[in-house]
C-alpha cells in the first residue's frame, strides 16, 4: 500500500451509535437500502466474499466487488467495480472508531466513521459520480442511526487519540 498514490476521497461523519450497530447497518442486506438511495447491497461480508449492489428500480447489477478485509466492528475493505464501465476496480475502506462526544456523553457513545475511496483508474469515468454519492450516503446513515437512538449528535466532538 505504501507505493500506492494518495487516496482520491476521504469522508468522515460522527454518529451517535455504537461500533456494533454501525457495523450491522453497513452489513445487513435489508438495512443498506434505507440509506444507500434504495440500492440493495448483498454480501456475506467475510474476506473473499463477493459484494453485489442492485438498482432499486429494475434490479439490475449496479456495482460489484470482493471483500479484501473484514474485521468486525472496525474495518471493512472491498473492491468496487461499476457494471458496464470498462475500467479497473477501485477500493473502498470503512473505518469505525469510538469517538468521545464532548457535549453528549462519555466515550463510546459516538462513533467516527470514515470512508476512504481510492485506487481509481487513470481518467476514471466513475470518479465524479462517486464523489457526489458518498456525502449523501453518510448523512442518510447518520440520520437513520440517530433517529433510532432519538438524540442526534451535533457537530461537537473530540477526535479519537492518534
Amino acid at each position, binding site marked *: *500500500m*505504501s507505493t500506492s498514490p*494518495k*487516496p*482520491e*476521497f*476521504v*469522508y*468522515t*461523519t*460522527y454518529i451517535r451509535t455504537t461500533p456494533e450497530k454501525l457495523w450491522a447497518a453497513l452489513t445487513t442486506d435489508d438495512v443498506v437500502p434505507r440509506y444507500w438511495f434504495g440500492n440493495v447491497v448483498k454480501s456475506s461480508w467475510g474476506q473473499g466474499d463477493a459484494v453485489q449492489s442492485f438498482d432499486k428500480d429494475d434490479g439490475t447489477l449496479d456495482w460489484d466487488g470482493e471483500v479484501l478485509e473484514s474485521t468486525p466492528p472496525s474495518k471493512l475493505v472491498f473492491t468496487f467495480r461499476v457494471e458496464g464501465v470498462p475500467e479497473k476496480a477501485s477500493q473502498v475502506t470503512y473505518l469505525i472508531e469510538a469517538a468521545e462526544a464532548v457535549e453528549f456523553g462519555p466515550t463510546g457513545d459516538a462513533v467516527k466513521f*470514515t470512508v*476512504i475511496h481510492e485506487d481509481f483508474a487513470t481518467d476514471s469515468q466513475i470518479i465524479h459520480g462517486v464523489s457526489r454519492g458518498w*456525502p*449523501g450516503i*453518510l*448523512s442518510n446513515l*447518520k440520520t437513520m442511526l440517530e433517529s433510532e437512538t432519538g438524540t442526534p449528535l*451535533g*457537530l*461537537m*466532538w*473530540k*477526535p479519537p487519540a492518534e
Partner: protein
Amino acid sequence: MDEVFKALADTHRREILDCLREDNGQTLSQLAAPLKMSRQAVTKHLVILERANLVTSVFRGREKLHYLNPVPLHEISRRWIKPFESARLETLHQLKTKLETEN
C-alpha cells in the same frame, strides 16, 4: 453546527479549504507553502477545521494527508434547501457565474 459556521468565518481557513478543493490530500507542509502561512498558523487552523469535521485525514506511512470533508456542509444544505429547490438554485448559480465571467 456552531463549530462549522465558526470554522468557516475566517478567510485563512476558507483558503485552506479552497486549497484542498484544488488538490485533495495534502500534508501540513504542502498546505503551508502556497498559503504563505507559518506551519504553526496552518496547524492551528487545521485543528479548528478538523473539530468542525470540515477537514478529515488519513495516515499514509508517516504522512498525515488532509482532505476536504463536505459531509457537514451536505447536512447543512439538506436542512435548509429542499430537494426540489436544488435545480433552480443551480440554474441561478450558473447564470450568475456566466454573467460575472462575461464582465
